[in-house]
Structure formats: structure tokens, C-alpha cells
């Protein structure tokens, strides 16, 4: 088992270094990649046929229904995040965690309606071509698209190419938006003041997330049609459902937050790392399964239509990567930690999901499994590495969303000959260079003005009593000795 894990690690190291192309990899992997393109070609062919045939009104309804189902699924991910974060932290901070997750959904949706949607999808309204655009405040049907199918006729189809309506588009993307802040919530848990955290969320979700999102999904400079062809090549940057655009953006915010805040009291004492146990493994497990369920919408909905072959194919790569993430982290945890650690394996499952998100539509079956295995294995090692560096992330958000988000994005270039590792790396770096400093500045300004961290006394007593004046498990005896 040990050699197996070592092989995996060696492979992941090779891939992280970024300059490695498919043909230079281990010969097995090379063959897989070479034979791996048949499926993707077929999928593209099917899509083209459908477009030539034109989308019928019936198909429009079917497509839109699937997109609305995806909205429901992405919505339930917020419950998943809430329970994961609750499970991995102490009972005395539960009300605070749940409160933050509740507020984030509201902040995400409302700011997205006010500014975010039009900042992320500026259409033709660019101030700086491909970099910054804004199509105005608020949401509403664009000109020429009528609310009713009957009156609008073809115009209703043209908005989303027959895949979805304007309203579906808004809500689907709006459900994504809050995710970036939710990722930060877990990392800074158990020590951040509620008010300043919510201010951060508003700024990050309203401005930073849609601004950088427009570079790819809004048709900006990282796309083939963008204005910086020399930089992104003929292939463009590929991030199917947001390994970089959503997960690494959240991850960079999380990293900035925990660096400014510092570790929780009692985590690193006199050079020794002390575990601070999460209080509910059942809640953690429920959360991870909810997130996996939600990912069917996150990735499946990112097909942007109910195109049968591609949508079902994406669900397959997504699930296989999640399963492989479990296996990869299980093998690593069992080898490195002596005991198989459930919390690590569930992190590994999420790591596999984040990893496949960038390439779920273009990688083949075996590469999808490899991506899951590697991300799962890396997740365990990365959590331990962050602890070694005394960077205290209670839920492993930086590992799952940042490290594996970056890995997943690079893997698109490695496993799909359609795309280049260099372009993928360019995109990853561009997001890091903007998101990390932006988050850092917001956190530092908050720290210097209103203060970011609760008092020592409050941290010991718990944020439930300190911030909210109520308990989460009233009537239960809980050993709050930590």
C-alpha cells in the first residue's frame, strides 16, 4: 500500500510542477490520455447536431427545467457547507457557524441581484475590454426578451441558446456566488467577530467574485474570444464549473483570512500542534453527502442545458472523482496517520469533487478517477502541511478549495490535449494575484478599524454566548474544556 501511495504522491508532485505534459508522464497515463479523446469528440458532435437542428420549444422547456433542478441542488450545498463546518468545529461555536452560513446565502443572492450578476456578465459593457465591465445595477429581462414564451417567440430562446431563461441564468449563478464566502466562513471559524466577517462577505461576494468571474464566464480576457490571445493561446483557459472561478476564489479569501486572524487559542502551543476536535462527525458526514448531491447541479447544471450525453457524462466524471477522492484520501490517511481518519476521508471526497469541477466535461473516465485519487491523497497531506506551517484552518477549506481547486484546473491541461497546462497556470495565477491581495486588504482594513478577532475570554467561552447570547445545545451537557 505504501508504494502505491508513494507513486500517487510522486505523480501529484510531477503534476504540481506544471511544466509536465501528457507525453512526458508515466507511459500508462500517456496511453490513457491518448485514447481518452473519443468520448469528448462524440459529445461535441452531438451538441453541434442539436444546434444545427435548432432547439424546439419542448427542448427549451426541458433544458430550462433541468437548469432549475440544478438551482435547487446548488442551493442545498449551502446546507452542506453549514453542517460540514458545524461538525468540524466545537459545540460552543455552533450557533455562530449556522448564523454565518444563513447570512451568507442572503448576502450572496441580494448583492448578486444588485451588482454581481451584471459585473460578472457585462455583455458588451466593458470599461476595460475583457477585464472589467458592468452592465448596470439590478436585474431585469434584457431588451428583446419577453417574459412570456408566447409573445417573445424566438427571442426567449436566443437568450441562453435555448438552454435556459434569463431568470434561470440569474438564480443559477446567484446560488454559486455565495459559495465563495461560505468557503471563507469555515476557515476563519471559532475566532472571527460576526460583524466584520459579514462586511468582508458583502465586499468579497459583491465585488471581487463577480469581477474576476467575468474574465472567463463573462467572456473576458481568459477566453478564446477575449482580447489577450497571445497570453491564453488558441485554446483559452478552461474552467468548466469553477475549480478556479469559485473554489480557488473562496480559497484565496480563506487563506488571507486565517493569516490575518492567526490560529485559534490552544492550537499551537510551544511548538506542538494540538488537535481541536470537531464536535459532530455525523453532521460532517451529512454535509459532505449533501455537497456531493449538490455537485450534480453545480457541475451538471454547468452544461447549461439538458443536453443528454454531456449532462449525464459530467455526472459520471463528477461521481467517479468523488469516489476516487475517498479512496485516495483513505489510502493516504491509513498509511500516513496509522488510523483511517473519517474527517480526512470526507475532506478527500470534497477534494475530488473540487478537483474534477474544472474539467468534468473534457476529461476522460480514467483521468477523472486519477484526478479524484490525486486530489484525495493531496488533501490529507495538505491538511497536515498547513498544520506544520501553523496555519490554522479548522475545516480544511484552504486544502479542499484552494489547493485542490488549483490542482484540478491544472489537470485540465494535463489530461485533456485540447487545453494547455501553461494557459491553465496563467489563469490560476491571475486569480491568485487578484483575489489573495484583495481579501488580504479587506481583512487588514477591518482588523485595523473595527477589529477582527473576538476577545480571548469570548473565544474560550465560545462565540455562541459571546456573539449571540444563546447556546446551540441547550439542555445537553457538553464538556467545554477546550
Amino acid at each position: 500500500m505504501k508504494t502505491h501511495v508513494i507513486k500517487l504522491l510522486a505523480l501529484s508532485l510531477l503534476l504540481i510542477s506544471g511544466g509536465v505534459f501528457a507525453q512526458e508522464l508515466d507511459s500508462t497515463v500517456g496511453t490513457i490520455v491518448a485514447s481518452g479523446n473519443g468520448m469528448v469528440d462524440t459529445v461535441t458532435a452531438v451538441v453541434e447536431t442539436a444546434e444545427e437542428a435548432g432547439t424546439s420549444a419542448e427542448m427549451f422547456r426541458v433544458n430550462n427545467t433541468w437548469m432549475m433542478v440544478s438551482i435547487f441542488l446548488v442551493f442545498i450545498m449551502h446546507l452542506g457547507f453549514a453542517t460540514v463546518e458545524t461538525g468540524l468545529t466545537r459545540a460552543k461555536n455552533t450557533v455562530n457557524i449556522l448564523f454565518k452560513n444563513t447570512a451568507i446565502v442572503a448576502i450572496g443572492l441580494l448583492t448578486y441581484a444588485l451588482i454581481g450578476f451584471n459585473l460578472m456578465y457585462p455583455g458588451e459593457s466593458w470599461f476595460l475590454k475583457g477585464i472589467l465591465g458592468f452592465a448596470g445595477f439590478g436585474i431585469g429581462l434584457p431588451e428583446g426578451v419577453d417574459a412570456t414564451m408566447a409573445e417573445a417567440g424566438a427571442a426567449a430562446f436566443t437568450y441562453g441558446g435555448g438552454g435556459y431563461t434569463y431568470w434561470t441564468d440569474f438564480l443559477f449563478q446567484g446560488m454559486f456566488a455565495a459559495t465563495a464566502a461560505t468557503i471563507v466562513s469555515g476557515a476563519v471559524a471559532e475566532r472571527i467577530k460576526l460583524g466584520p466577517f459579514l462586511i468582508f462577505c458583502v465586499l468579497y461576494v459583491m465585488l471581487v467574485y463577480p469581477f474576476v468571474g467575468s474574465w472567463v464566464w463573462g467572456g473576458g480576457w481568459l477566453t478564446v474570444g477575449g482580447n489577450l490571445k497571445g497570453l491564453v493561446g488558441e485554446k483559452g483557459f478552461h474552467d468548466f464549473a469553477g475549480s478556479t472561478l469559485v473554489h480557488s476564489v473562496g480559497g484565496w479569501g480563506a487563506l488571507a483570512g486565517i493569516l490575518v486572524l492567526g490560529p485559534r487559542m490552544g492550537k499551537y502551543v510551544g511548538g506542538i500542534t494540538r488537535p481541536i476536535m470537531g464536535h459532530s462527525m455525523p453532521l460532517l458526514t451529512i454535509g459532505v453527502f449533501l455537497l456531493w448531491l449538490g455537485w450534480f447541479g453545480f457541475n451538471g447544471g454547468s452544461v447549461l442545458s439538458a443536453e443528454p450525453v454531456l449532462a449525464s457524462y459530467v455526472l459520471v466524471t463528477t461521481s467517479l472523482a468523488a469516489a476516487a477522492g475517498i479512496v485516495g484520501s483513505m489510502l493516504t490517511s491509513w498509511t500516513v496517520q496509522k488510523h483511517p481518519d473519517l474527517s480526512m476521508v470526507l475532506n478527500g471526497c470534497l477534494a475530488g469533487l473540487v478537483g474534477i469541477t474544472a474539467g468534468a466535461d473534457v476529461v476522460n473516465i480514467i483521468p477523472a478517477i486519477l484526478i479524484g485519487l490525486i486530489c484525495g491523497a493531496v488533501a490529507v497531506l495538505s491538511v497536515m502541511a498547513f498544520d506544520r506551517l501553523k496555519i490554522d484552518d479548522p475545516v480544511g477549506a484552504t486544502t479542499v478549495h484552494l489547493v485542490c481547486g488549483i490542482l484540478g484546473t491544472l489537470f485540465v491541461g494535463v489530461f485533456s490535449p485540447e487545453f494547455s497546462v501553461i494557459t491553465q497556470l496563467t489563469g490560476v495565477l491571475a486569480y491568485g494575484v487578484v483575489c489573495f491581495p484583495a481579501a488580504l486588504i479587506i481583512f487588514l482594513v477591518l482588523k485595523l478599524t473595527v477589529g477582527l478577532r473576538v476577545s480571548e475570554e469570548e473565544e474560550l467561552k465560545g462565540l455562541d454566548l459571546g456573539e449571540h447570547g444563546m447556546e446551540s445545545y441547550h439542555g445537553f451537557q457538553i464538556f467545554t474544556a477546550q
Partner: protein
Amino acid sequence: MKLIIAYVQPERLTAVKQALYEKEIFKLSVTNALGCGQQRGYRESYRGVAMEVNLLKKVRVEIAVNDDFVQATIDAVIAGARTGKIGDGKIFVTDLADCIRIRTGETGEDAIG
């Protein structure tokens, strides 16, 4: 032989244990306790209604020691638990009639040490 019973703030337990270890006192029992002292409690609110919570969470630490360890134990508990604020807790010291280790049948001072 004395039985030392200390009620301390839950969040000070780690520090108390650390202080005891430094004085080479390794045997203790800890239980959850609810108590009411000079601290009087705090206010919580639930669905808009305020409520007074006057039974506060404490931990009860019990340590049985031989006479020559009594002062060291008391010092260690104080060192770990004291913050200088109301609510730091109390230490009770009582005589201990006997002590029997179940496994070996040892009694008295041998059983404690």
C-alpha cells in the same frame, strides 16, 4: 491523606492539568458540574426573550493526595485556574479516611501514590 476538590472554569482545565503535570501530579478525575457562586450568572436570550442563567458550567476536579503533596496540588490548581476575575472557582480540602486500589488491594498512602 487529603481529598482536594476544585471547581474551576471549564476553559481553564487545560491550564490546570498542565500545571499539575509540571508538579508531577498525574492522577485526577474531572466531571462536568453546574454551579452557582459569586459570579451570579449571565444573560442569554432566546427568540427575543431574555433569560437569566445562574447555574454556570464548571468542571469539578478531584485529586486524592498524600499529605506532602497537598500544597503543591493547591498551588498548581491556582496557577492554572486563576485569572483574577470573579468566577475563577474554589478549592476544598478534606481529610480522606482511606483509599483502596481495586486491582491490587493496596490501601492507604500506597494506593494513592
